[in-house]
């Protein structure tokens, strides 16, 4: 048999049917739904009189719309948000789907609670009506975002019509320098390949620097596979993965656990497997980075300066001109001179416990600069509870951070947490698109450590200077 990649193996294990032209029916092991991309799918089922084939393979959680202040338990004030969350609740009840509701401590961002509940396991196919489903690839699961029509298709059939993507390998070898984190790896890769570099591919992240990462770090890397244009990101599971999954509520137990681990150990690319595209990056060369523009590919080391449109060719020069105007920046300006108004720490990229610990480490003995709005939105109620138990929450509040309830929050500003026009934010989220965090808001993406450093000085700051 010819050598296979990890992606090939998971694909083959889930192939229900393949047409002559390669159009395939792929079995889906796990489905996650949230309130924004599912109402039309459930409505479609109702109209066609179709049941959900396997309600037990789906979980539901509201995250995009939910306010992050504690009064939300008394009801969501924004009427449309409330209707969407109520629709999810109603649909979950009608179709028999388990839901982690707003008042449940386990509620949080869908891509945080999947792994947290042991719902995400190696070798699975996992989908959600949300592009950052790629996050779950950190466990060696084939996980990707789907549209609402596909949500309906999966609910009705537990399968998805797909054609196979190409294989792409991104290898990061070596040791990360101090102050450089998983977020810097993933942003650096996108800076290198561009937002369309992975289009049509599934990326497998490999190399010693990736293996060295914690599960949280691996999730950060896979989370942004979509910003690099890839369908999904994957990391081969290892002992760290198994340790993370073990004992979680939905994880296999007893003999089933042993059988599962045996199988999971086979989930790695064979020697000599073919990749259509290979990118190699030396970990030692990665530095703390920030974005300067309105595309996640607009990445530069914090020691750099704002580029000029003339530095680019073709359509990218126009895009850069527009981005500089939108961001209110001048070519040649030092990135570390850029002043910010807001710091947002959270999102499915960096809203996990390790991210909060990292922020706490940088903030040790320091304070948020006076006048700055700095908010921390834990990725789930359980992350929040753990940070409180570890004493991190109290320390960060004393340092001047707001301590919010779990949700997507200012990652996309669908709830009241938004930037005002012209406001500039150091953000640990994954998208710096125009208007993403609020109308005319300006976003600089970076790691939690870098966002913490910016909170201290009120400017984009090289965290290495604080170490």
């Amino acid at each position, binding site marked *: 048999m010819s050598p296979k990649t990890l992606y090939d193996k998971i694909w083959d294990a889930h192939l229900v049917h393949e047409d002559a032209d390669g159009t395939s029916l792929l*079995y889906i092991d796990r489905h996650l739904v949230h309130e924004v991309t599912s109402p039309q799918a459930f409505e479609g089922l109702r109209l066609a009189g179709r049941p959900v084939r396997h309600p037990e393979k789906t979980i539901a959680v509201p995250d995009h719309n939910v306010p992050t202040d504690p009064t939300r338990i008394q009801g969501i004030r924004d009427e449309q948000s409330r209707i969407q969350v109520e*629709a999810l609740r109603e649909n979950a009840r009608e179709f028999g789907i388990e839901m982690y509701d707003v008042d449940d401590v386990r509620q949080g961002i869908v891509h945080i609670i999947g792994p947290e509940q042991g719902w995400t396991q190696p070798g699975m196919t996992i989908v959600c009506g949300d592009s950052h489903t790629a996050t779950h690839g950190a466990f060696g699961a084939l996980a990707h975002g789907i549209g609402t029509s596909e949500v309906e*298709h999966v609910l009705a059939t537990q399968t998805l019509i797909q054609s196979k993507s190409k294989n792409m390998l991104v290898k990061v070898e070596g040791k990360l320098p101090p102050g450089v984190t998983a977020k810097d790896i993933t942003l650096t890769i996108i800076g290198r390949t561009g937002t369309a570099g992975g289009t049509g591919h599934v990326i497998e992240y490999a190399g010693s620097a990736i293996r060295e990462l914690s599960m949280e770090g691996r999730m950060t890397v896979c989370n942004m596979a979509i910003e690099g244009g890839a369908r999904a990101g994957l990391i081969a599971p290892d002992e760290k993965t198994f340790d993370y999954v073990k004992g979680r509520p939905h994880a296999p137990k007893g003999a089933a656990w042993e*059988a599962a681990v045996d199988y999971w150990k086979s989930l790695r690319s064979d020697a000599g497997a073919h990749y259509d595209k290979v990118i190699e990056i030396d970990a030692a060369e990665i530095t703390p980075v920030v974005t300067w523009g309105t595309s996640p590919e607009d990445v530069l080391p914090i020691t750099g300066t704002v580029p000029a449109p003339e530095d680019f060719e073709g*359509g990218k020069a126009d895009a850069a001109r527009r981005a500089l105007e939108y961001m209110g920046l001048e070519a040649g300006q030092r990135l570390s001179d850029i002043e910010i108004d807001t710091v947002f720490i959270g999102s499915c990229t960096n809203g996990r416990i390790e991210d909060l610990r990292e922020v706490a480490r940088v903030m040790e003995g320091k304070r948020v600069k006076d006048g700055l709005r700095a908010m921390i939105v834990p990725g789930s109620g359980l992350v929040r509870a753990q940070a409180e138990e570890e004493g991190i929450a109290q320390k960060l509040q004393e340092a001047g951070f707001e301590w919010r309830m779990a949700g997507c929050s200012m990652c996309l500003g669908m709830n009241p947490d938004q930037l005002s026009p012209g406001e500039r934010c150091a953000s640990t989220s994954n998208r710096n698109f125009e208007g993403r965090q609020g109308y005319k808001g300006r976003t600089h993406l970076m790691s939690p450590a870098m966002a913490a450093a910016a909170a201290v000085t009120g400017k984009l700051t090289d965290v290495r200077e604080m170490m």
Partner: protein
Amino acid sequence: MEKFENLTGVAAPLPMMNVDTDMIIPKQFLKTIKRTGLGVNLFDEMRYDREGAENPDFVLNQPQYRDAQILVTGDNFGCGSSREHAPWAIKDFGIRCIIAPSFADIFYNNCFKNGILPIALPQDQVDRLMKDAEKGSNARIEVDLEAQTITTSEGEVIPFEIDAFKKHCLLEGLDDIGQTLEKGAAIDAFEARARAERPWL
């Protein structure tokens, strides 16, 4: 689903690359629980000012493009989120065909589920169509899905590629779910096999 047959219409030029789903339909319009009605908010932040007044410079506000059925645009169109609200808004506005050098993956697939035809062409051909589109309402472009050709206002014929299955579904207006349910026996067989091989699932 609505069938896609031949289309002859005005093409609106939007010469921008990396047009993302937040630009196509900003998130404040995602709070709907319906599929329709999003067309008025298509490209909202470029199309209107804060008070809701039309920006006269934006292409879809110009009289000759108000009824555009085709959009000619730049690389990596539809990048960003998986939200199907983006194709819903495009369709609701009346655009049925998008021509660009490349598309973001999920958006590309979502188009087909909603009766929209996305066509990827080499940059030089897109440039040619962009010029054609800039001529406004006198320049009608013809898209023939069956023959897989685009005919410019000057009669030039440009062929395009499309996946055979996707083409078939668009032409027939086929519902994916109905088709898959016909493969119920294969799904049952797969589930029985998977239960034996991976019982922990």
